């Protein structure tokens, strides 16, 4: 499944991308799709068969499951970080 994560900072997005890759998930940074919004304008799209969070997620703003029809399913993270 494909996910998109948005971030409070550009740096957070780049770091998340690296963390994804280290964990073995293909990931890339890209501009935030126009129907979503974010503070920094950059998001990370990654492929994974499971929902996954890195340890450092201070800059993580939101998480979306990308639907096959192009929709985005927001996932609210309830640990106070996003």
């Amino acid at each position, binding site marked *: 499944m494909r996910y998109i994560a948005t971030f409070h900072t550009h*740096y957070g997005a780049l770091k998340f991308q690296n963390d994804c890759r280290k964990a073995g998930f293909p990931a890339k940074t890209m501009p935030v799709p126009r129907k979503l919004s974010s503070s920094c304008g950059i998001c990370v799209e990654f492929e994974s068969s499971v929902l996954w969070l890195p340890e450092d997620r201070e800059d993580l703003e939101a998480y979306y*499951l990308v639907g096959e029809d192009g*929709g985005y399913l927001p996932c609210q*993270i309830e640990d106070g970080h996003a």
Partner: protein
Amino acid sequence: MGSIPTYSRQMHGAGILNDTGPFCVNKLIQEDDFVLKDRYKLPLVGVLVGVVALALTHLGNPANMGFCIACFLRDMAGSLGLHRAAVVQYMRPEVIGIVLGAFVISVLKKDFSVKGGSAPFSRFLLGFSVMIGALIFLGCPLRMLLRIGGGDLNAVVGLAGFVSGIGVGVVFLNKGFSLKRNYSLTKTEGYLFPAVNAGFLLLLVVVPSVLIFSESGPGSMRAPIWAALAAGLIVGVVGQRVRLCFVSGIRDSILFREFGMLTLFIALTATVAVGNILSNKFVLSFANQPVAHTESVWNFLGLFLVGLGSVLLGGCPYRQLVLAGSGNSDSAVTVLGLLVGAAFAHNFGLASSGAGTTPAGRIAFVICLIITLTIGLTNLNKSSASA
């Protein structure tokens, strides 16, 4: 698509979450209200902004200055008595319109998001520095395009500096530059900036005698209040919806080969050029351009500083107005930095004129470049973010 279960368990540390996890599911976000795809929408917005800018010039604004966020904030600083340059003082309704347009549309579209607290004073100083750079060039990135559309080749030199500054800013981003995250704030915080702008509009309409108005020079050249306000509202609304930003459009084409926003810039510039040609105002030259000078090195460097500072800020001066109207108090602080920068520029003779740059302006440029680079270099994260 299937569903994701709702969970409430607290999650700490790294982890793979398959059948348990800290997620709950909200409403699916589908294609938004725009019928047109970006491919068509962005150039159309460019044409619209170009037409509005041409109309403002036709209705009385200075040549090649349908819009200029830097010049207009400078005029507003003068109108409030923050500087004493008698030729550039006016409470520009265009700026108020942009802020209020962005505010109204962001509230209507549930895009109004009150956030702040990300290095406010760094942002203030970056805003200050961006304004010094813009007033050395004599225009913000938006006016740069309008000047190119008028045939002003000095603005092409400025564009080269602007792109270079953005390129250096991108290097900072890839080296892990961050002013740290912002946080959600109370609604009141977000309403204050639009409210202050509404207050300025009230002053302009009801008690203009408390404000200062230029009787000659660029500040005296103005479209009628309601036309200027309407123009600002239009550009604020469409700019908020398509996230128009003259910096991020170029930044994203460097970073991600995402060229959509460039089509808007090209359409805007082409529209203005066609309008100027049709009205016999198009003059392709370096010399004798309106509110411009021919010192190429400083045209380049001025917009270099604007590009670099704006990448560190995350948006150009126009975008800062829109974000401030949409609840971002970091952007509101940045606009204050721009405003104070403009006041300094005219109180201390830092701003250029048609005759060129000033010695004090060149010194101020060096100081502001040092400030910007210092903020850039001291906010790099040690663990480089680049892959």
